[in-house]
């Protein structure tokens, strides 16, 4: 029977098998494993059965710890169970993994291996997570490629049932999980014949059941635990052999052969690399290449890492080996060596030195030298050049041990040098690189292209996609390979036959043509025509084109897209050009296949979408031109530096390189040792991503501050200043007489940062001031950026030079006034139109110079803390928010730790202070101890007192003086804010959040509630509202959103506010001020519109208004201080619901798509949602109407 060939990524390849071999699947999203769970959920929603004909039960849990617990329970109750995870998620599963293994419970955890956060979080791939599980008792089975992920997933499921040892099947995150490759698909019959049903019966017979009761999971004492722990040994002893047998059976079924250790290379190799994961594919191919060049080298690829079979390992190792390099994709600081290295050393020692196993082939040979090294941490590229460097090192008389490869370690000198030009790729393999803008659809089209090539031609094909860490205006780089031979090249293309640049502006930012080989094709999306394009290329690009004799093509894809209603989606246009130029398929056939792919991808969205894409394809080739390349360089300009010359040295030398995508070249010595980075670096990264930016129209402006408060990227600023600053103002500077009662006689200007704006236009939507003669014109309007970029930049720079308003001179209680305060959160990488960042920015305006932020992992930690540049900024006095991210699940506790530390220091300082009354004076001591810090001026005065204190203490030489000096700043009040999304607050971090609220300590928690896991791509949380569709709730959420505020109210001593800036910016600001002022825990739940809601976010504020008007998001504040005054603490800030929920909900795809897929269910759910909203509103009303008695009033017992 012919095999089905498909082109898919590693996650789908794995999930395909896991789903079909499971009955219960417990999941929780985490990058890069989320899509495995998403596939499972989608298939279950579509009622796809497993191989036994029943649809697996897929359940989303509140955390990976929860998923592991559910898995454990499901196994104990007899189900075939699986889960998917990575990184911190896997670490959260470890306690259960010990239990599951200790109870000899068959299961498979599929892991897309990812870096565990250390000095920084990283979503990318290495094996540090898997290595943390070595002691759990799980078998660890490594897949090195997409095909292997598919195959070994099946082998893991079959093996665990036989061995009763649970399996952790893993493959490299991103490199394998997200690589698209052509593989042979296992049929359901293949899977069926691999699994022995009697083992399933046996598994079920061991399950808990009241029908044959027993207990499992006892507590034991010193007398027996140890012995019983040893009972499992026989199972581990036979496990490797069982896996080997399953692999043999698998080979009979599929024709693909695997072993516990697979060797590639010279059978008489003298130098061998031992490793596992995708890198071993690169190493294997490099060994083959070097072998052809006569080198005696080989690579031993590890599949079954635990239980580690010394026997199988030594059998697979060529007896001729003289030196071995063991490569670990992890780091264990302080260890004698990394884990695989230690295992190999142990195996060699046990097997050869101790002679515990009769390995005759090694008789009379010297023991091989073993060295270990680290590579590929956090998806660092691992290339043939690096493999060669390792082989070369093994040839040395005294090779470096505990080396690194792939970086330059100029501190502890661990790194091996390598020649980056070393290339082993088959010349028949065509290598193509595409530079795209996130929003232009390049990646999607390339995924389709690689599927077309993989499935519609005889070519083998591979696709890998590199994304930006910015959520708006990011760069994508697609790496596509295809050719007649299987592609085992899990590394990015560095030497390409075809380079496409889908955005002209990239040429001035990046070295696009660097990777083009001589004679390669360069395709450029150009707004300039055939005759003018050359003069608009930077010198460097012209040089590459001329010197490498590149074939240069252009197309004005935006013009074609405009004509065909494609907007800015140029994907199919560029894709068509690629096929036309590359000639991978005859032109007509290529067009037919592209159209087929379009039909498949977009068909379900309606015919109109298909038609416009077809039109774009048809018109693409008519607009494709080859440029006759001049023979000399004529350009008058070069690429612009990634950061301006005036940027600080660290920004220029380190962050600037990262911005220019040259971070790989930065040596170890350039980095901080503990993950500490300077604040406020986004100001140096001028991304210029907005096509249009806002322009202020002073004649209409009413100085209300609404445009500034809603700006997600802090690019709209207001200042009130002395008229004398007009004198040196640049040309075109405009101002108004300031209308602020505290600031008479001043001028007012709104400025826009032209190069930092993302062009969302939410400011225009927010502006209430309309031109009476032309209502479409407002006090702020969008205008094309390029023509005004320079003039606006000059104005912006001048604006920054004008002093900030004196915070003590104005009341900060109104929105109008707060927008004069300097935001200390600016130019983040958040989505254009983000609904979260305006809240954070407002926090920094109100409390920024005394703000400490604990940030849960999620969107806010990414746009707030992802390098190269970060948005939390510093004011001119050098003060600003101090920010840190610990984990996802522990954020409330992390922030509480801030408070505990601050309070302790404050307490100690207050204890010490009176001892210095003699030198400080009683008055100063008394003033410091009894300072009123409830106002801006109170804080300023306290800062001045503390400065005076520090000045005095610096002259003292006693221990106590030094102690007090080091903690004196704690005498100035700090505002601790614990920031995170609903995934954290409602789900994974809820236990901690609850505890922190219960603690009574003075912390403020703000939940940026997008009602979905936004950062990982829209999975449902317990905050997801009834009737909304989300991943893991594909049929629409059938139960109401958890009412977090109401739960917190039960404490009675927690300040709670539910806010929505779009509905009431003033209520938002009041709530934040009250939360900060409240001397106990505060919880602010902030409605945050989000790209995961599925509409143009410029309408985010309007949607917030509608959410409130419909009753799904009532606004309120619950202030326990009012109860102390005998007043009702609950104040409802919104009116009775006045519109039906549909009027709000059906503007958003998350609701609307259910109408379009299951109208009946949508109707039923939206009705329930309305009932739920009405019921809750009634409850709030009743609570708000309750009469409270004054606890401080005299005894009011009417009986007295």
């Amino acid at each position, binding site marked *: 029977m012919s095999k089905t060939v498909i082109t898919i990524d590693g996650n789908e390849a794995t999930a395909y098998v896991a789903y079909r071999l499971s009955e219960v699947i417990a999941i929780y999203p985490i*990058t*890069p494993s*989320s*899509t495995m769970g*998403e596939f499972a959920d*989608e298939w279950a*929603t*579509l009622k796809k059965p497993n191989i036994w004909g029943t649809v697996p039960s897929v359940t989303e849990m509140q955390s990976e710890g929860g998923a592991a617990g559910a898995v454990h329970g499901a196994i104990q109750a007899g189900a075939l169970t699986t889960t998917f995870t990575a990184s911190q998620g896997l670490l959260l599963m470890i306690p259960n993994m010990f239990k599951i293994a200790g109870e000899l419970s068959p299961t498979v955890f599929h892991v897309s291996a990812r870096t565990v956060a250390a000095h920084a979080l990283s*979503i990318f791939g290495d094996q540090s997570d898997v290595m943390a599980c070595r002691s759990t008792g799980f078998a660890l089975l490594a897949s090195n490629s997409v095909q292997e992920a598919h195959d070994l997933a099946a082998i893991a499921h079959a093996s665990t049932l036989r061995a009763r040892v649970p399996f952790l099947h893993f493959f490299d995150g*991103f490199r394998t999980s*997200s690589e698209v490759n052509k593989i042979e698909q296992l049929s359901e019959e293949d899977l069926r014949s691999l699994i022995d049903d009697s083992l399933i019966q046996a598994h079920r017979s061991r399950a808990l059941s009241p029908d044959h009761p027993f207990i499992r999971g006892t507590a034991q004492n010193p007398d027996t635990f140890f012995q019983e722990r040893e009972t499992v040994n026989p199972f581990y002893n036979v496990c490797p052999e069982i896996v080997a047998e399953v692999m043999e059976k698998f080979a009979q079924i599929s024709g693909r052969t695997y072993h516990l250790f697979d060797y590639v290379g010279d059978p008489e190799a003298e130098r061998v690399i031992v490793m596992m994961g995708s890198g071993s594919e690169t190493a294997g191919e490099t060994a083959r290449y070097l072998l052809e060049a006569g080198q005696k080298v080989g690579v031993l690829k590890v599949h079954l890492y635990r239980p580690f079979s010394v026997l199988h390992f030594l059998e697979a190792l060529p007896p001729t080996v003289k030196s071995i390099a063991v490569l670990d994709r992890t780091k264990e600081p302080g260890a004698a060596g990394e884990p695989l290295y230690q295992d190999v050393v142990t195996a060699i020692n046990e097997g050869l030195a101790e002679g515990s196993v009769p390995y005759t082939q090694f008789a009379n040979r010297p023991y091989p030298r073993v060295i270990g090294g680290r590579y590929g941490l956090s998806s660092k590229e691992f290339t043939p050049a690096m493999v060669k460097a390792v082989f070369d090192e093994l040839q040395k008389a005294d090779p470096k041990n505990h080396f690194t490869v792939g970086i330059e370690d100029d501190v502890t000198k661990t790194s091996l040098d390598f020649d980056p030009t070393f290339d082993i790729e088959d010349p028949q393999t065509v290598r193509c690189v595409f530079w795209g*803008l*996130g*929003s232009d*659809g*390049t*990646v*999607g089209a390339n*995924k389709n292209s690689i599927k077309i090539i993989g499935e519609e031609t005889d070519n083998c094909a591979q696709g890998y*996609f590199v*994304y*930006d*860490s*910015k*959520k708006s205006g*990011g760069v*994508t780089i697609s790496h596509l390979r295809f050719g007649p031979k299987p592609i085992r090249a899990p590394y990015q293309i560095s030497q390409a036959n075809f380079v496409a640049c889908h955005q002209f502006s990239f040429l001035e930012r990046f070295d696009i043509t660097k990777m083009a080989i001589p004679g390669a094709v360069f395709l450029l999306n150009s707004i300039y025509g055939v005759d003018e394009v050359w003069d608009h290329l930077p010198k460097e690009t012209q040089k590459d084109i001329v010197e490498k004799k590149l074939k240069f093509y252009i197309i004005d894809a935006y013009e074609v897209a405009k004509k065909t*209603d494609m*907007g800015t*989606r140029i994907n199919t246009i560029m894709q068509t050009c690629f096929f036309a130029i590359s000639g991978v398929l005859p032109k007509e056939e290529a067009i037919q296949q592209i159209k087929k792919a379009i039909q498949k991808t977009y068909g*379900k*969205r*309606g*015919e*109109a*979408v298909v038609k*416009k894409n077809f039109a774009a394809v048809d018109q693409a080739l008519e607009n494709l031109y080859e440029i006759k390349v001049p023979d000399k360089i004529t350009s008058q300009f070069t690429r612009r530096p990634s950061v301006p010359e005036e940027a600080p040295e660290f920004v220029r030398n380190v962050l600037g390189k990262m911005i220019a995508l040259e971070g790989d070249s930065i040596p170890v010595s350039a980095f901080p040792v503990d993950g500490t980075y300077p604040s406020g670096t986004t100001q140096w990264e001028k991304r210029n991503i907005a096509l249009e930016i806002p322009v202020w129209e002073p004649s209409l402006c009413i100085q209300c501050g609404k445009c500034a408060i809603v700006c997600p990227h802090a690019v709209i600023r207001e200042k009130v200043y002395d008229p004398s600053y007009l004198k040196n103002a640049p040309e075109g500077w405009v101002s108004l007489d300031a209308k602020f009662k505290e600031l008479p006689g001043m001028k007012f200007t709104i400025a826009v940062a032209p190069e930092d704006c993302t062009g969302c236009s939410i400011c225009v939507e927010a502006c209430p001031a*309309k031109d009476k003669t032309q*209502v479409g014109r407002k006090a702020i309007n969008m205008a094309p950026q390029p023509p005004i970029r320079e003039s606006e930049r000059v104005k912006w720079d001048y604006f920054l030079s004008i002093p900030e308003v004196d915070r003590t001179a104005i009341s900060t209680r109104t929105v109008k006034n707060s927008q004069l305060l300097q935001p200390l959160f600016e130019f983040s990488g958040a*989505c254009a139109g983000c609904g979260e960042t305006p809240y954070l920015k407002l926090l920094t305006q109100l409390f920024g110079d005394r703000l400490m932020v604990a940030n849960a992992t999620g969107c806010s930690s*990414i746009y707030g803390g992802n390098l190269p540049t970060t948005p939390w900024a510093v004011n001119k006095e050098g003060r600003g928010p101090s920010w840190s991210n610990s984990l996802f699940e522990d954020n409330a506790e992390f922030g509480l730790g801030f408070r505990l530390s601050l309070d302790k220091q404050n307490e100690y300082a207050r204890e010490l202070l009176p001892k210095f009354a003699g030198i400080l004076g009683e008055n100063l001591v008394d003033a410091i101890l009894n300072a009123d810090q409830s106002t801006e001026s109170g804080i300023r005065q306290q800062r001045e007192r503390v400065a005076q204190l520090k000045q005095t203490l610096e002259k003292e030489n006693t221990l106590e003086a030094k102690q007090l000096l080091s903690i004196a700043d704690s005498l100035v009040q700090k505002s601790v804010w614990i920031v995170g999304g609903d995934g954290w607050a409602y789900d994974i971090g809820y236990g901690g959040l609850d505890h922190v609220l219960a603690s009574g300590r003075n912390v403020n928690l703000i939940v940026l509630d997008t009602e979905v896991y*936004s*950062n*990982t*791509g*829209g999975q449902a949380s317990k905050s997801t509202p009834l009737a909304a*569709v*989300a*991943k893991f709730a*594909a049929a629409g959420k059938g139960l109401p959103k958890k009412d977090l505020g109401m739960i917190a109210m039960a404490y009675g001593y927690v300040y709670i506010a539910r806010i929505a800036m779009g509905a009431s910016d003033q209520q938002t600001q009041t709530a934040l001020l009250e939360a900060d002022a409240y001397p106990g825990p505060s919880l602010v739940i902030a409605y945050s519109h989000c*790209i*995961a809601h*599925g*509409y143009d976010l410029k309408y985010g504020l309007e949607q917030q208004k509608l959410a409130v008007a419909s009753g799904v998001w009532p606004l309120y504040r619950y202030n326990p201080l009012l109860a102390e005054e005998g007043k009702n603490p609950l104040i409802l800030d919104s009116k009775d619901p006045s519109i039906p929920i549909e009027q709000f909900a059906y503007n958003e*795809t998350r609701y*609307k*798509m259910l109408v*379009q*897929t299951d*109208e009946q269910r949508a109707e039923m759910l939206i009705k329930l949602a309305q009932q739920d909203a009405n019921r809750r509103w009634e409850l709030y009303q009743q609570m708000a109407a309750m009469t409270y008695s004054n606890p401080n009033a005299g005894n009011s017992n009417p009986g007295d």
Partner: protein
Amino acid sequence: MVDLSTNYLGIELRNPLVASASPLTQKAETAQQLVKAGVSAIVMPSLFEEQILRESLKLDQDLTRGTEQFAEALTYFPEVGQYSIGPDTYLQNLSKIKKSVSVPVIGSLNGYTDGGWVEYAQKIQAAGADALELNLYYLATDPELTANELEDKYLQLVRNIRNKVQIPLAVKLSPFFTSLPNFSKHLAECGVNGIVLFNRFYQPDFDLEELEVVPHLILSNSNEVRLPLRWIALLYGKIPVDFALTSGVHTAEDMLKALMAGAKIAMITSAFLQEGSEFATMLLEDLQKWMEEHEYTSVKQMIGSMSQKAVADPAEFERANYMKVLASY
């Protein structure tokens, strides 16, 4: 016992009361209630080609926004099965209604492009519609577009559909024609079986507080019946098609007027939305009662009995009518 039956577009109907397009005629459940209350035919809401295109493009835009650009969130929505974008839901509803009611079901179509009209008309026919009502309305905003060009375009669209569908065809018109009789004549020449007068449109309104243009829906009232009444009375007997009167029919008296002007049927929307489907029963009772009281034996007897051709002074329907109204003040 009076005979309420009538014949519209060649289809025999039990009475002249037809439910025209509204949310009530969109689904089988509510359509059944209308039929139970007595209506003799159901006209489904228009299948709007433009709306389908827009919905499709919007869905695509909303599902695509922000995708494939950030490594942790390559998409934001689950992959679901087929979206009910396009005419499928409409056609399914049509089939369902057709199966669940005993009266004729008339499909309705508001086309946008030449190709789309014909394609959707065929689909409506295939889904089981007894007749098709074309909603002819193009808002001419281009000063360069002449009335002739637009009318020619309309007629070409109608011809194309007439050539492709076999079921009876009616055309619903707006009152905004310089020479309605002439255009109606051309429609008849194209082979249409009926003309429905008149279409009502949602006219935009201004929100003076927000200075925004807002959509505004006002249900009809009885006063509105007089515009189609005049035109049907004028056209009856001159243009060889069946007429249906829609807009402003709220009482049995309105229905009687419609029939006497020359309409074969009277269509009702607003009254059902205001009063519920049971209102049909009352209307028919009133109609029957009036006819009995005035000794009419059949509806067919009164159709066109007060058309321009039938009245003593035909000029009443022309300019004199206008003068008379003014003179009454």
